[in-house]
């Protein structure tokens, strides 16, 4: 199973942060797992990452969050430095069944895939198959 250096989880629900972190750990995808509880915090973290010299390779992005939602994060993402956009690939993770959401996710050029919650080892493995 392919592994990456580090993963960022953007999620407001602490229970889901717990689940995603565990599943990613158990799948062997990455040992470095960071979480940010809001889109704004995540954007801040990524901007700082450039000066820190350390950026995540994969971002698991929730859609429905208070304040900025996943799609608004994506809009802001396009304004981030080139380095961030080149290095970080995004996977959207959500409990939504709204086809409008699914379509928006799938048609966004930065989104690698849409995964319906809950995240599982199998779904992670399928990402890289």
């Amino acid at each position, binding site marked *: 199973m392919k592994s990456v250096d580090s993963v960022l989880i953007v999620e407001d629900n602490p229970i889901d942060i717990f*689940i995603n972190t565990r599943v990613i750990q158990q799948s062997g995808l990455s040992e470095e797992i960071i979480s940010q509880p809001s889109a704004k915090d995540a954007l801040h973290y990524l901007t700082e990452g450039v000066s820190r010299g350390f950026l995540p390779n994969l971002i698991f992005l929730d859609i429905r969050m208070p304040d900025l939602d996943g799609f608004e994060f994506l809009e802001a993402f396009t304004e981030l430095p080139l380095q961030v956009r080149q290095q970080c690939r995004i996977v959207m993770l*959500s409990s*939504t*069944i*709204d086809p409008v959401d699914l379509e928006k996710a799938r048609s966004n050029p930065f989104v690698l895939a849409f995964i319906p919650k*809950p995240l*599982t080892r199998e779904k992670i493995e399928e990402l890289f198959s």
Partner: protein
Amino acid sequence: MQSYPLHLIIPEEESTGVEQLKQAFIPLNGAFRLSIVNSNLQLNHQIESGIRIAVYAGNPTYMSWQECARQLRQQSQESIFILISDEESTTSAVTQGADLLVHSRETHQLPQIIGAFIKRHQVKVLMAMPVQLDPVEELDNLTQLQEKNKELEKINFELDRFVYSASHDLRSPLTSVLGLLNLMREEVKEAGTIHLVSLMEESILKLDNTIRDIVAYSRNNRTEINFEPVSLQALVNDISSNLRYLETGDFKVAEQIHLLDEYVFLSDRNRLQIILNNLLANAIRYRHPARKPEVQIGVLLKGQVVEITVSDNGQGINEKHLGKIFEMFYRTSDTSAGSGLGLYIVKETVKKLNGMIEVKSQVNEGSIFTITLPLIHQLNRKSGEL
């Protein structure tokens, strides 16, 4: 639902062709307010009062269709004239004043064809008003209608967003619990606990299915039919890959799609997705315990209908249930994973598309669901005709 006034211009003597034509509009429950015109006197009077949609059929002797179309246009540029004829070609019909040419063999699909045409020419129908009103009043009514339409679209859109928002808020804690149950399975070794975890998962999945079914039911009732070109192959592929996320265990889906290449299949993609998704999910869910579920999807063009069959090698359905499985909340047993809404929704959705559904089944062998949908021709790719 918007109801369009439609005038049927037919010969004075009744004929079977004309009777069939009138029958075609009956299933659509008031989508059109039908008025029959079968004499010169009536026609002149109607043209003067204003006709929005005219369907000319059967070769009435009191006025030729060309003359009728011409007079209609004189009264109002915005009215729609539909000609039913086997003699004319599309080009000749359109150049002589018809908006749409339909062949007599397609009359039973006429409401859908007109509906699709109106959707593309929404403004035209709204703007064709009865002539009695004076110009100022006419304009007021027009703006009112357009405003009302916009308002209804907004309400429908907001209701949709509400339904999906509410369903997300209900589903979110469920997906969290499912995630936690998965983790529990990994971390707990005791067989008794694992068993409890499975039972919890089953109950949660059942709840999730009910939520999805309620959302699907809400949308089927409210939203208009949206005709668009549909690739059945792509649709089946999408559904299969979505199901892999949801269903545990392996399964196989094979398709055999026999639609002529030169016809484009027009239908409501969302509704087709609901139908096929439900049937496929059922076929896998009610698998036979001794074998891997295999589902065959067949699509066949049979004259004026498209026949879609979904056959599985699952548990099968006992004869005593067959008559009731399409009923709301009917489940064959309390332990079954479904909500009891799935097949009811399939039936309602098929009905909305003016189709029919049948089931044949053998306990321990499997089941075959057959759906027949009226075929709606789009432009024949080669000849350019309807």
